[in-house]
């Protein structure tokens, strides 16, 4: 079930328009910029009397989460509802997969109830691709996180937050810090940052949490936190995913915080206007200090707010038709 086995061509319809949003890898720059531009015009909707547009009226969207999630599921739900879709949330604990039904059979059953759009999170890499490959032509799939592979909508809202904070991507130096090994977010961010043309991407963390092949993605890796932070414009902290760790990858929480936890003192090595991001949920005192997380440098809550507009943009982009405009 490797994602590349099905190919990224599955994301496009016969007119070359985006129809699923499964991975950022292979998407052209103009597609990413288009999603960010459209999201910009959705930002103001939160302030309107009626926070809805009729684009997905009459469409049924199913949030299919085989892994727990709060902000991703909630912001997808709000995004779907603001586009006037009927949104149904299904959580793994109540699902028939527990009774032994395969994920494809579950999705086919739901599709038989005339679902138009699936938003899928699963612990297996490639789950969203697999589902997309087994559904009829008119049904759309969004990857809301699959195993260690990708979390493309999170990466897009991070790009949106960076563009709003920094005005663009040219010349930016970005550091991604922490548990790169288990992070699907980091992988999607690296693809997006490279496609959008930042100057430099550094990944920083203990050697045990940095995949050996990561530099092939176009980043430089270091285990020295201060070297990694030096002159950086955007600091992206990753959550230390303790629930994914089955071995002894980190010596102790205290030692991890001492070396890689982002404190005000360490942040001084970054550019004076550097912003701090985190996909959440944050572990205060483990990968980031409360002082930094709550400081004016932090755009962590903006990321959550931006998640709604960016997800509206992605849903509207893949759900629209692709006939020629008259």
């Amino acid at each position, binding site marked *: 079930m490797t994602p590349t086995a099905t190919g990224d061509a599955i994301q496009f319809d016969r007119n070359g328009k985006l129809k699923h949003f499964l991975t950022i890898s292979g998407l052209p720059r103009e597609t990413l910029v288009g999603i960010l531009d459209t999201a910009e015009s959705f930002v103001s909707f939160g302030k*309107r009397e*009626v926070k809805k547009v009729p*684009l997905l009226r009459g469409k049924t969207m199913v949030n299919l989460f085989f892994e727990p999630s709060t902000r991703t599921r909630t912001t997808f739900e709000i995004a779907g509802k603001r586009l006037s879709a009927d949104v149904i949330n299904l959580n793994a604990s109540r699902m028939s997969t527990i009774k032994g039904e395969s994920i494809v059979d579950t999705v086919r059953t739901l599709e038989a109830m005339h679902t138009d759009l699936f938003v899928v999170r699963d612990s297996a890499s490639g789950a969203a691709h697999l589902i997309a490959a087994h559904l009829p032509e008119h049904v759309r799939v969004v990857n809301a996180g699959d195993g260690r592979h990708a979390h493309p909508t999170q990466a897009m809202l991070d790009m949106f937050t960076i563009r709003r904070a920094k005005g663009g991507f040219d010349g930016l130096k970005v550091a991604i810090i922490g548990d790169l090994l288990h992070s699907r977010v980091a992988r999607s961010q690296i693809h997006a940052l490279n496609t959008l043309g930042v100057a430099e991407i550094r990944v920083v963390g203990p050697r045990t949490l940095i995949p050996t092949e990561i530099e092939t993605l176009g980043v430089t890796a270091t285990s020295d936190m201060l070297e990694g932070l030096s002159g950086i414009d955007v600091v992206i902290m990753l959550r230390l995913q303790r629930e994914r760790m089955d071995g002894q990858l980190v010596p102790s929480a205290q030692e991890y915080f001492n070396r890689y936890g982002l404190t005000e003192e360490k942040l001084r090595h970054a550019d004076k206007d550097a912003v701090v991001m985190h996909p959440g949920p944050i572990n205060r005192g483990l990968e980031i200090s409360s002082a930094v997380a709550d400081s004016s440098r932090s755009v962590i809550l903006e990321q959550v707010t931006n998640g709604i507009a960016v997800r509206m943009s992605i849903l509207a*982009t893949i759900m629209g038709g692709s006939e020629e405009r008259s």
Partner: protein
Amino acid sequence: MHDSGQLAAITAEMADAIVAQQLSAPLIIGIHTGGAWLAERLRAALNPAPPLGTLDISFYRDDFSRVGLNPEVKASNLPVAVDNRDIILVDDVLHTGRTIRAALNEIFSYGRPERVCLAVLIERPGRELPIQADVVGQSLDLADDEEAKLSNNGGDLALNIIQIGKAIAGKIA
């Protein structure tokens, strides 16, 4: 149609016709893109100049499931609340009426205006909805394969008549 010539005369007449509507403290709203240009001209001709808003109706169009989102969608911007307010809705060309239908839906998602008055530069045949303008700059009897389109060359507005698939068939300046 150029600002200095015929177009300026028509917009001046339109401004007079808007005054005759006796609106109270109106908000003038132009529909992107041609309507927004025209609304700016009309606003300048009104005294006192009303607040100016712009509307991008892309999210309210009825052809989304066929053609998708307009890739160049712009943000709508209404500087004051529409509740209980008189509104001058401005577009360059009234053709099928679908754009106006979408614009009305969008305006009502902001609130409940007191009255909406529609002002268009060009009225042409081809209505598909029961919508008519209150203020019309000029009526043109265009054929199905003809299109009237406002252009803006560095602040200089001109109306071009285009035969679809062919070169410019006529120009009002």
